């Protein structure tokens, strides 16, 4: 069982990923982002995402119903179904779902954050939360029929309402609940870069300790992604490869080890860079 995370950037080669999936002959579940589609749509609709900074300085996008509507149109609508279309055309029998559908990703709404407003501390509640579990029965039934589930946000909160969540957290929950052997994260870079500005500085491998160190030093969305990666590693760590989603054969290359292999412990090879 492979979990393939498709990044939401414009230059991701979805057709290439679809062709690779058709060839691997192993059960797969796909999770995808759609930030590029959402940002374009938000700009066209003149909607500026509202970012709030908590009392302790953490910046996050505030998810109100308008932001959820954008998720439904960009993630669950446009991007999800265009990925399903590309897969169907490549011979992969994809079924697109967001977390609400059959509560395939059940989450818990965030309890609110503390913000300073008008000289007082207040609790701000929004429509975001953390994935807790996957509907394994539904996913197994789809897989048994030969389908490839293609999942994205929003997920369901305790009452069945649509809430935003971090796609990487969804990958971690799926990897755990489906006991995935391999997780492939396809991004708009050749792998994890020692120097983000230098595409040649791809790390051949990365250990849990390094991920934790990076996470401590990082900020904003990158910190969130490293946190989700750490969670993935701390669980029943599957093989994790971070590879270039823009390549001719993104998934094929990743499974052949082209990219950064993230290893649960000090097993990481000397953390050397690719030749």
């Amino acid at each position, binding site marked *: 069982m492979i979990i393939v995370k498709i990044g939401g950037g414009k230059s991701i080669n979805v057709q290439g990923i679809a062709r690779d999936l058709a060839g691997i002959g192993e059960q797969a579940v796909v999770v995808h982002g759609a930030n590029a589609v959402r940002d374009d749509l938000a700009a066209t609709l003149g909607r500026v995402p509202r970012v709030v900074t908590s009392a302790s300085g953490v910046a*996050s996008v505030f998810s109100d119903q308008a932001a959820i509507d954008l998720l439904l149109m960009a993630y669950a609508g446009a991007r999800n179904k265009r990925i399903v279309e590309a897969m169907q055309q490549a011979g992969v029998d994809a079924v697109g779902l967001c977390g609400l559908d059959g509560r395939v990703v059940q989450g818990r709404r965030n309890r609110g*954050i503390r913000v300073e407003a008008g000289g007082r501390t207040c609790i701000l509640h929004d429509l975001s939360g953390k994935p807790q579990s996957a509907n394994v029965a539904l996913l197994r039934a789809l897989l048994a029929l030969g389908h490839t589930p293609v999942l994205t946000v929003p997920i369901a909160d305790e009452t069945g309402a649509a809430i935003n969540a*971090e796609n990487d957290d969804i990958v971690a929950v799926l990897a755990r609940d489906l006991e995935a052997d391999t997780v492939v994260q396809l991004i708009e870079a050749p792998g994890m870069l020692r120097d983000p500005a230098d595409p040649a500085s791809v790390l051949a491998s990365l250990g849990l300790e390094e991920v934790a160190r990076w996470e401590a030093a990082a900020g904003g969305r990158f910190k969130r992604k490293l946190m989700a990666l750490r969670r993935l590693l701390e669980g029943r760590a599957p093989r994790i490869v971070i590879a270039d989603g823009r390549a001719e054969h993104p998934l094929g290359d990743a499974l052949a080890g082209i990219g950064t292999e993230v290893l649960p412990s000090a097993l990481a090879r000397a953390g050397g860079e690719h030749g």
Partner: protein
Amino acid sequence: MSPLHSTCPICDATVELPGDVSASQVVRCGDCGADLEVQALDPPVLVEAPAEEEDWGE
């Protein structure tokens, strides 16, 4: 207007609310020191304020 009062959900003590209190404001219980969120105002309802979540939001 006599000062607003409510009950601390943690230790049941009476909590006096500031005159200009607003919904969703955080107030502290004078007895047990817990941070409380003003969930409603008319009548005032207090709940335990959520702890800061390290990875709130998306």
